[in-house]
């Protein structure tokens, strides 16, 4: 299957007083895609595939990409509330949600607030809960490590997938810096989790697929298991030759697994 460049259409929409950037494509049953800390672009290979089967809606979170960041927003919970309003505006009354990394965290927050509106969840290398002991970080500190180490934890094949900062256009590198800044704003403390979330996840009765790239250095297999165990109706699968971003490294495999789960 070939993937068209700029496969997704970009528009902006004011939601809850926040100008959001939305990427959309395809038709059929809607899927809300919530990106990781790395953001989302119109050329996302996984979303291009998904749009062949589904109506895909992928917002840039407030403060990411070209979406505005209101002064009052400083948490994942704030973003989840903005997305509740987005779901109202787009009339997504019963919708599948896919979340990667912090996008998985936002997905979990939404699902605890309106479990009846979530049809199925796909959580790809999700963060958002604290499952281990106080004296060890569940997720390695991404704000305190060299970029090459970060690339090794994120990618199965860092040499192939890490961005080349020297040749990247200014606009793209600005977006990258902004994404990182907003990630720090919302995930700095408590680090990469909401302490309340694990006490709320029992409400999420929708079927949930927990996925993890086998080379993911941020979200461990143990973490994913303990996370999934907090929801009543989950299953776990691994993706070979992928790290924390299987949507970039293994879009075809991910696409097949996700569609199989959503269509089942």
């Amino acid at each position: 299957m070939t993937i068209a460049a700029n496969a997704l259409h970009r528009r902006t929409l004011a939601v809850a007083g926040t100008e959001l950037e939305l990427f959309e494509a395809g038709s059929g049953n809607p899927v809300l895609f919530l990106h990781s800390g790395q953001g989302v672009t119109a050329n996302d290979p996984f979303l291009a595939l998904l749009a062949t089967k589904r109506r895909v809606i992928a917002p840039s979170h407030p403060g990411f990409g070209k979406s505005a960041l209101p002064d009052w927003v400083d948490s994942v919970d704030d973003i989840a509330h903005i997305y509740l309003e987005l779901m109202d505006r787009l009339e997504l009354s019963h919708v599948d949600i896919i979340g990667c990394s912090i996008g998985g965290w936002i997905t979990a927050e939404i699902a605890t607030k309106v479990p009846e509106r979530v049809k199925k969840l796909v959580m790809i290398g999700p963060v958002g809960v604290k499952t281990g002991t106080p004296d060890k970080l569940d997720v390695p500190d991404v704000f305190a490590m060299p970029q090459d180490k970060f690339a090794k934890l994120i990618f199965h094949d860092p040499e192939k997938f890490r961005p080349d900062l020297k040749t990247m256009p200014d606009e793209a590198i600005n977006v990258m810096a902004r994404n990182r800044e907003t990630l720090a704003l919302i995930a700095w403390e408590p680090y990469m989790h909401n302490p309340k979330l694990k006490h709320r996840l029992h409400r999420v009765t929708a079927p949930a697929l927990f996925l993890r790239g086998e080379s993911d250095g941020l979200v461990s297999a143990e973490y994913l298991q303990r996370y999934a165990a907090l929801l009543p109706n989950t299953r776990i699968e691994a993706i070979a030759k992928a790290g924390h971003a299987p949507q970039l490294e293994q879009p075809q495999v991910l696409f097949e697994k996700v569609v199989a789960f959503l269509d089942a």
Partner: protein
Amino acid sequence: MKAWHFSENAYPYLPPAEEYESIRVNLPNKNYDPEKGAKLYDRFLDEWLIAEDEGMEIMLNEHHQTATCVDPAAPIVLGALARLSKKARLLILGNPVANRRQPVRVAEEMALVDVLSRGRLECGFVRGVPYEVLPANSNPVRMNERQWEAIDLIVKAWTSHDGPVSHEGRFFHHRNINIWPRPYQTPHPPIWISTTTPSGAKRVGSRGYVQATFLTGFEGTRKIYENYRQGWREGGRGNDVPIDRLAYAALVYTADSEQRAYEGADKLLWYMRANKVPFHYQYPPGYMPVPAMAQVMKGAALDQHAALKDKMVVEKAIEAGIMMAGTPDQVYAQVKWFYDHVGGFGHLLIMGQAGFLEHDDTVHGIRTFAREVYPRLKADYPDTKISGLETETAGVGRSEQSLRSAGMGVVNPVSS
């Protein structure tokens, strides 16, 4: 002009730098010997008191989880100095209020020191360097906004005297603010703020607080002061900015011979040479604006650091305006040279001890400066003098003329 003796209370007895990744944040404290540390505290306190005896003022600062400055709780050392010293002004520069969870507690600590010292406190506030956000677990995003809200809250706590007041702000919440003691000075201790950005300096100027800047050299300092003066005027504080509103921190070493001075000055450069800190501690996300951070990510910082490395010899550091070193005549001329270039400043913050500059040499530097340079600076630059460059406004011109007529250039400021 006032001169302040400033020591970072460094702990220099470290393994070779190749053996550790960073002198800050993750250097294990097994490398710190408390016995040696205790002797250093005694020594640095003694040196501050010697500076006081020589007529200088006292300045200290605070850093965290680092061997470069083993003073993670400056208010405690300030409390000791308040009792040990008798007449010097006591400048803490400063309280990292964007990293402190309770500004009201900071207001209490500072009020206590002000009373203990009978009103000798000069209270500085700093945003904190980027490598402090991890030690404080402090979010690097929106630090400026937090800092200013904290400062305003502290001023409110200091100046409210009729029972509890409250604060429900963006970042801080206090329902019952009613500090005991209240400050000794009225309405409150003088406030100093360090900033290195033009917009920050404008804001400090509009408030009329004392603006301090560290090691920003000739051009950087000139720009910061210009912006301060602009902010001062736009803030409706009148046309004339007294020089006592502006402070500059430099590495300063004065000795009876040029050779001895350069040897001592070279040891002061330890501050810059030893500051081994990896990129990911120096540039936390959000600490600088996005476009600047993007340039850093592209490699701009590497060029800056390479340029800085070139300044790590005494002559280059003097030419860059981050160091004043030599015989008394040379140091005097260098201060004047700098003063004229930046438009005038009223406080020289002297980083007069570092690394392996031992006690006797530190004291020689303090005494030589205090006895042979300082009196001339005080005579030339009384606090009421006006700061400004000829290019700024017509109104400043006349003051500027008198400022210029102080003269300079009788001695080659770099080397004879």
